[in-house]
């Protein structure tokens, strides 16, 4: 039996190899707290330098995450306060009753008008509160032509004072803008316009007569002729004033107007008579 066999034999019965763990043994001992604290401080001093970089990285990471989170919260708050409608508003708009098919055309007018203005974040007006179209809305729109009443009123304002005298009629003509008056007359009846042109053509030859020096005797007839014309105009105005209101009657009024022009024709004939006299 050699040495190796003897060693092998003794190795079988040798006590198990044991590792002495001093910290664990000391912790297991019922030692006073001061000794355990002294035993722990060296381990802390040894582990502290190793934990410093890890703690630094952790702190940096947490700080970056906090900054990003705060930036996100700020952006969200700005977006909520400025841009997008809040959740309660969306809910309120969803809770509004939808307009019926009969009410929809009534709201389309204001909707088209609102489409031209800049985008408004406010919820759309409910159908019940939407302004309805009335006769006033149609009346405010300026028509191309004149109705019979408007034309009569415009003539009444001008010809009413004209009946009192020629000076008053001149002031009335100054008060009413002539351009609009001509347009109204032209829109009302082209027949009168042609008649006015004929009147202007008839008055044109009378002016040289009035400016002629030997016309001292003829100045009196021209003055009479002018007064007769000024009398003729109120008569036409009176004829317009008593015109009926309806359009059908206005058409007949055109006939009457033509009849009035026929009546004024003798005045022109009178002027023609003057020319014949001249």
């Amino acid at each position, binding site marked *: *039996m050699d040495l190796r066999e*003897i060693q092998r*034999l*003794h190795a*079988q*019965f*040798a006590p198990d190899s044991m590792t002495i763990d001093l910290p664990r043994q000391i912790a297991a001992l019922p030692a006073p707290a001061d000794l355990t604290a002294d035993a722990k401080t060296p381990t802390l001093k040894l582990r502290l330098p190793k934990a410093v970089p890890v703690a630094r990285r952790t702190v940096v990471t947490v700080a970056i995450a906090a900054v990003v989170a705060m930036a996100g919260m700020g952006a969200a708050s700005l977006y909520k306060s400025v841009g997008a409608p809040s959740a309660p508003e969306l809910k309120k708009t969803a809770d509004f009753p939808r307009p019926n098919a009969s009410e929809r055309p009534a709201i389309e007018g204001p909707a088209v008008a609102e489409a031209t203005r800049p985008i408004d974040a406010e919820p759309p007006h409910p159908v019940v509160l939407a302004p309805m179209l009335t006769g006033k809305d149609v009346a405010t729109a300026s028509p191309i032509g004149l109705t019979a009443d408007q034309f009569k009123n415009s003539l009444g304002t001008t010809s009413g004072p004209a009946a009192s005298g020629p000076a008053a009629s001149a002031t009335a003509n100054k008060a009413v803008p002539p351009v609009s008056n001509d347009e109204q007359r032209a829109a009302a009846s082209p027949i009168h316009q042609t008649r006015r042109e004929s009147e202007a053509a008839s008055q044109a030859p009378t002016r040289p007569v009035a400016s002629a020096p030997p016309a001292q005797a003829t100045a009196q007839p021209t003055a009479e002729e002018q007064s007769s014309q000024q009398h003729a105009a109120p008569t036409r105005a009176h004829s317009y004033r008593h015109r009926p209101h309806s359009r059908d009657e206005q058409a007949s009024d055109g006939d009457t107007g033509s009849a009035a022009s026929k009546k004024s024709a003798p005045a022109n004939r009178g002027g023609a008579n003057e020319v014949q006299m001249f």
Partner: protein
Amino acid sequence: MKTELNITLIARGCAITGDMVVDHGISLFGLLDGGIISTQGLLHIGEGGLVKGSAQGEHVRIDGRVDGDVHARGSLEINGQVSGDIFYSGTIRLGPRASLNGTLKRVARMLTIEADSTPDEGPIAGPRLDDVKGHERAESNVTEFSRAMA
């Protein structure tokens, strides 16, 4: 901390007279005229070894010859001659060449150890305590002497 394998080898041709006490394993191939105690490890009486006295150990293996009692606290393996009583606490194995000439008893482990160690240590521990007390008295005397001098 690993415990290194530490054994004592008494080779063939070695004769020892008296009792032996070791705290580790021992292999005996020589002649021992006395008792042998191994507190830890294997007590091995090799082939050709002879012990004229009692043998006590934790693990005991006898391939030689023992003329006395055998105490084993752990395992006991006999493949030789034992002339005496055998006390064991754990397991026992007998080889083909085992020759037992005595009684075989299985005893409790603690009783086996204390029964042998207590009567031996009793007379030794007494004087030690007396010596310690004597030292304390001497120190006390010195202090008293120093106080007297002062």
